[in-house]
């Protein structure tokens, strides 16, 4: 009943966003910066921004999230934030001693027009940045794009500041990770290791945001792409970008800067996207696909075949980030389900075109939308017009799922009410298996709970 305010009648909205399927740039930059070892993300703006991002990431990962803030005051908004950032750099290196500080901006510092290049180089001249330490920065105005844009901008900053080409190319493939879980990154590394491919994954939040309990608190957990690896991305012979929205810009910048050719593919969610990833890695690392991986794939196909009767024709609504939704939609089609409603708050043509390609023939009735006003309120209205059998998205979906009594699979950011995303990946054949099981579990639990008494069955 929580969402009783939602009616099935769509109203013309020019300005308003209700219950967004997105958030703002800086949190994406903060998340990405945590994937470099010894790096402290720094929010150049008011205290609240930093506090909100840390809280939001903490609620999702259930892990300490470290980041500092320029603590803007009334004065900074009038005279500029230069003094705050300079003081911040000094404080950070004295108190928290990171190897790298990754500054990102906010709507406030962008609008007052702080020039980060100038502020940071002045701090360097004045000896405020200790030897061997680095301050990098990127622009992440909250009023442009979404959290995915911020993530992408941070990745590009890694390339700009670190990637270096020496005369000697190495037989290494860079893997640029789009917005995914630490567990996904761990799985991608496992697949690469199984293939015995030499890779550099960046950023890498595994062992940063999924750390064991040791009785010790550390500011900089053991994980994260090392500075040496990040620098060496310029010497790799190829880059595979996983997710166009989050990684394409970084791939292009790396090619321009260090002549590393690239290919951008989807995040390997589902059978076909994983096939493409494995084939791409095998081709560019010039290694055969090992039997172990083929067998994993076989077990996934077996699982899908065993349960195909439950998937056929089921209508699914999904929301979240485009890099996740595109391969997920494809996977739902592989399962013979019908993805009918898809929204993402992140704008971009690639999403619309991919959806058209995927759905035009197979699910002509599907509705999809991206960018402004592609929010969960709209998706809920669609569901009210014609219901679905399954909802997939972040925790905010639970209100719709409860109101409409539909099974719900949690996937995306943030997930604040269930654990597990830190442990069980969504990528690779293993991830696809996890996803298939989650979907099945949702559908079958719902059936058991809601079907008439005489239809409850022991054997399903």
């Amino acid at each position, binding site marked *: *009943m*929580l969402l*009783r305010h939602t009616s099935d009648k769509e*109203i013309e909205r*020019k*300005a*308003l*966003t*209700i219950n*967004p399927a997105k*958030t*703002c740039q800086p949190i994406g930059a903060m998340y990405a910066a945590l994937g470099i070892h010894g790096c*402290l993300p*720094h929010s150049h*703006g*008011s*205290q*609240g*921004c930093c*506090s*909100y991002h840390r*809280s*939001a990431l*903490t609620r999702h990962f*259930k*892990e*300490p*999230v*470290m980041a*500092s*803030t320029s*603590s*803007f*005051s*009334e004065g900074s*908004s009038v005279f500029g934030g230069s*003094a705050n950032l300079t*003081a*911040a750099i*000094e*404080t*950070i290196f*004295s*108190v*928290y001693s990171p190897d790298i500080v990754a500054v990102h901006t*906010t*709507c*406030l510092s962008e*609008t*007052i027009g702080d020039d980060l290049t100038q502020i940071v180089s002045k701090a360097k001249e004045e000896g405020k940045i200790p030897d061997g330490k680095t301050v990098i920065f990127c622009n992440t105005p*909250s*009023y442009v794009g979404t959290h995915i844009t911020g993530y992408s901008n941070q990745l590009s900053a890694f390339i700009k500041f670190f990637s270096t080409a020496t005369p000697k190319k190495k037989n290494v493939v860079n893997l640029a990770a789009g917005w995914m879980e630490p567990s996904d990154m761990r799985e991608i590394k496992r697949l690469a290791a199984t293939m015995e491919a030499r890779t550099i994954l960046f950023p890498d939040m595994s062992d940063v945001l999924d750390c064991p*309990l*040791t*009785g010790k*608190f550390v500011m900089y957990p053991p994980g994260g792409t090392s500075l040496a690896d990040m620098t060496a991305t310029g010497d790799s012979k190829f880059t595979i970008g996983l997710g166009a929205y989050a990684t394409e810009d970084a791939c292009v910048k790396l090619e321009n800067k260090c002549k590393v050719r690239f290919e951008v593919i989807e995040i390997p969610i589902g059978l076909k996207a994983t096939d493409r990833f494995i084939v791409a890695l095998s081709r560019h690392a010039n290694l055969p696909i090992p039997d172990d991986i083929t067998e994993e794939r076989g077990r996934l196909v077996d699982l899908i075949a065993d349960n195909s009767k439950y998937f056929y024709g089921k209508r699914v609504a999904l929301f979240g980030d485009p890099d996740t939704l595109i391969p997920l939609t494809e996977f739902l089609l592989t399962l013979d389900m019908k993805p009918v409603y898809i929204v993402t*708050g992140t704008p971009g043509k690639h999403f619309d075109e991919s959806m058209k390609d995927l759905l035009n023939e197979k699910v002509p009735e599907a509705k999809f939308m991206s960018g*402004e006003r592609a929010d969960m*309120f709209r998706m809920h209205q669609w569901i009210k017009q014609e219901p679905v059998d399954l909802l997939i998205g972040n925790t*905010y979906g639970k209100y719709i799922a409860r109101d409409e009594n539909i099974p719900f699979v949690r996937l995306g950011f943030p997930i604040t009410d269930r654990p597990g995303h830190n442990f069980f990946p969504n990528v690779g054949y293993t991830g696809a298996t996890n996803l298939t099981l989650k979907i099945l579990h949702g559908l079958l639990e719902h059936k058991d709970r809601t079907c008439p008494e005489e239809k409850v069955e022991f054997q399903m």
Partner: protein
Amino acid sequence: MPAVPQFLQERNRQILTKGKDAFDIVGGQPSLAGAVSQRACVYCGSRVVLYPIADALHLVHGPIGCAAYTWDIRGSLSSGPDLFRNCFSTDLREKHVVFGGQQRLFDTLCLLIDKHRPQAAFVYSTCIVGVIGDDVPAVCKQVQLLKNIPVIPVMAEGFQGSKKDGYRIACDALFQLIGADDSKTIGEFSINILGDFNLAGELWMLSEYYRRIGIHVVASITGDGRVNDIRNAHRASLNIVQCAGSMMHLAQRMNEQFGIPFRKVSFFGIEDVADALYQVATFFHNQTLIDNATLLVREELSNLLPQLDVFKNALHGTKAAIYVGGAFKAISLVKALRLIGVSTVIAGTQTGNADDYKLLKKLCDDGCILVDDSNPIELSEFVKLTGANLFIGGVKERPIAYKLGIAFCDHNHERKVALAGFQGMINFAQEVYNTVSSPVWRFTRPHLAP
């Protein structure tokens, strides 16, 4: 050894060990730029205070983030309307930063008011609005005339200071509503409750106590709040202020304007709850009320004390670290913990002032570390130093405590169990006991011995 930089020497004035350091902490200083501060901003302060008003429309004027991060995060329960749990944002884009967002705000407000017919609307102004210069009060005024409901600008640009400054702005916004209506039927003995946010239904418990004594709660500001109650709040005889950090300003303004006296109370811990009930009963100089209060406290205590003794024995020797938002909460926590055999070894707050810290210092045992506006490194060092084995804090402290391998109890927005009132004391003891005695803390050593 390198000289300690000046700014760190100053920082030392925000940390003291009772029985060792002679000075007093001066709270309320702005955070150091570059700090991994646990503090939030002005907007956050006003948003958390106003958010629980359930039948009002809350529209955030700014880029999407400020609205998204505060969407349904505070567990304030409502007994009826739930409009407040939706996330409404003008979602400002680059073009609005250049050309202004006033028209967009106007359109959005009108559309929302037409659709939802709220009792009032609060419009939150975020950092960027302050900089691009949208005249939010003017738009609010215009819409108010057009739609005939109160439309209140909350000028809470984040950069103005810390969360505490946001409380003040929220109080001023609330004050615009108070005194606007006289229609509500008011009981003979009436109060307003200021600064309870109905987390886990705590307000309902407290209102029930007062009902049993014979006292009518006119308005709850703001837990399970209603616009019309707040508009009638000026007609109550007394204000009781629970979260003093956030609501003192409103209590003072209501005192000046309407002559309503106020009492600072706490509903946390036995002594404080009993005191809060007696204070109100004696205020009215009415023997029946006093008798009712005495009876209520006696009944509740006879039920409570034997249960608490069990916990006290079990928890004896537990050492607690407290790091919370407001100082009043910290003070209540120290007392309540003592009641269940737990000593406080670290007490810190985000927003305490000099007087708060004096009071805390008086209350704590020797050796207790007091700290203002701390950070994760300090907190974990203090835990190691003091051997604390229980941490009481909020969302950002929880994983740090767990990583240190010690028990944790949430005493912030995300608590799911009522901790106020007499029943709350039992719940609190139970929560503390559950987490302290969890078997998991026995498995935290990283290596297996052969």
